């Protein structure tokens, strides 16, 4: 193996892969092809994870390092860093890519400390420039962009922002070797244990949703979210909220978009009764198409949005839902 190779961590939760990991493999493929190297996907999980190894190959990996072990069923930093750092020391790649999910953003810097190297977080672009990999990432809440490089340390670790890169078209005929590895730690060496999981109700996760319907103070109260949920249902969208709504207790914090909430980058973001404060923009400005529904024509959100409707959301949102429902057979 050599510094032209790329290693990618494939994240799974309860046996389901994180879509961001396929995006990261797509980036890895492109970089490895440019550098003349290979892509190795590292997959850690409980028994029954092997099926994901072939999927990783379909998505562009050349080979998979697989550790199937009940100890690795749940993400925990210690055994994951131990396993990955062993695999990485062995493979000696130039680049390690991790999708910037919450677990990914915890793993990347822990791995970097273990390997005494650099980790560039939450990259929105990665390009090879004069032989040096240059990452672009938002700083100061997206008000500025920084180009980052890791001139000397290897491997260089990057976490890739979810939905900032497209996954490759799956190629079901692609195949490659699966190397089986074992967790190197005994349970007593691990300081933490996952004892329970309480899933978020309401299905579609905000972070990787293709469409987000978000509500602000304009919804007027907890019941005001109903029409937004109906719209989200016909669109298969996730629901989001401004901080004003969360602070008012109309929606739980899990739904908050913005500087002190989640960052989302869907294809379509529909902001309903949201004024578009800078701290809200931080969490959604990289959405591909932004639609603003607001009854105040002067609302700052119209400066950011691509399309705007000036009017009462309680008229427009149900009308949109109806029109869209007609399209569903």
């Amino acid at each position, binding site marked *: 193996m050599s510094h032209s190779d790329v290693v990618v961590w494939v994240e799974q939760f309860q046996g389901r892969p994180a879509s961001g990991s396929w995006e990261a493999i797509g980036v890895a493929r492109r970089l490895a092809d440019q550098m003349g190297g290979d892509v190795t996907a590292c997959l850690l999980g409980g028994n029954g994870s092997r099926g994901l190894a072939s999927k990783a190959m379909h998505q562009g990996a050349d080979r998979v390092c697989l550790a199937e072990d009940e100890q690795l069923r749940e993400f925990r930093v210690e055994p994951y860093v131990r396993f990955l750092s062993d695999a990485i020391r062995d493979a000696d790649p130039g680049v390690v890519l991790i999708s910037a999910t919450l*677990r990914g953003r915890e793993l990347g*810097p822990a791995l970097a400390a273990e390997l005494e190297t650099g980790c560039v*977080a939450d990259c929105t672009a990665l390009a090879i420039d004069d032989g040096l990999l240059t990452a672009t990432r938002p700083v100061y*809440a997206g008000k500025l962009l920084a180009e*980052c490089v890791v001139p000397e340390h290897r491997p260089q670790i990057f976490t890739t922002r979810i939905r900032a890169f497209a996954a490759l078209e799956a190629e079901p005929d692609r195949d490659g070797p699966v190397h089986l590895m074992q967790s190197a730690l005994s349970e007593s060496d691990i300081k933490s244990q996952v004892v329970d*999981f309480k899933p978020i109700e309401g299905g579609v996760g905000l972070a990787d949703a293709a469409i987000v319907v978000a509500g602000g103070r304009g919804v007027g109260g907890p019941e005001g979210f109903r029409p937004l949920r109906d719209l989200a249902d016909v669109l298969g969208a996730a629901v989001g909220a401004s901080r004003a709504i969360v602070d008012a207790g109309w929606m739980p914090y899990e739904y908050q978009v913005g500087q002190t909430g989640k960052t989302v980058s869907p294809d379509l973001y529909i902001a309903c009764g949201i004024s578009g404060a800078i701290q809200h923009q931080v969490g959604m400005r990289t959405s591909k198409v932004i639609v603003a529904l607001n009854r105040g024509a002067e609302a700052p959100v119209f*400066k950011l949005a691509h399309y705007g409707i000036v009017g009462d959301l309680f008229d427009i949102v149900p009308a949109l839902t109806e029109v869209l429902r007609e399209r569903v057979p």
Partner: protein
Amino acid sequence: MHIVVCIKHTPDSEAKMSVDESGEVSWGDSPLILNPWDEYAVEEALLLRDEHGGNVTAISLGPEGALEGLKQAVAMGCDQAVRVWDGFCEGSDTLSTSRVLARAIEKLGKVDLVLVGRSAIDADTWQTGPSVARRLGFASLMYVIKIAELDADQGTIVVERLLEQGREVVSARLPAVIGTTKGINEPRYTSFMGIRKASRMQYPCWSTDDIGVAAEEAGAAGAAVHWPRIFAPPPRGGTAEIVEGTTAEETARHLVAKLLAEKVI
């Protein structure tokens, strides 16, 4: 219990950021503030101390200005505060920051818990907590929205982490690094008495030499990541295309047509 809380001083979230021709970043006359995410970490440290006893040390790696953040932490109720800085710390990335912070925390003696914020709103890397945890060999528990149990005698903690799919309940052995997130508490305001106490407090400043970090391990010299260029993103077109119709239904149809043309639905 000895609780350490790591804080950073950052430009205000409302600040208008700009970059001049030489690539120097500035935030105009906007004040520096205690990183908003760190207020949750400070508050949680104080709540835990008040319930379980012990004391809280605030620590910040930063130049003179970082003193203001430490003063705010003390005014909120921290028992002591330490700044870490010398010329060698200039230009740190997470690699050098985590080396320096971890050594400084070790110098504080026995520590049961280290609290950090989710992220610092300047570079927004979210990396310091997990890196420091790894260096100290402590359990790493980020995105914590609730401390469900803490048994100081047994040295165990149970927390709820807010992940994409829901809340993960994790139990861990202390010492641990806890990354707090919004929703864990409501940070208190500083009181008049607190501000007075903060203004009288001594704030030691440790150099790299004091904590035993070699000059070439700190700051820009010890950094792996460099950022040769910072720039303002190209401005968005300006204003939205306003979609209209004589009725709500017609307006909705027009919008749906546009979204179909954009291929986003």
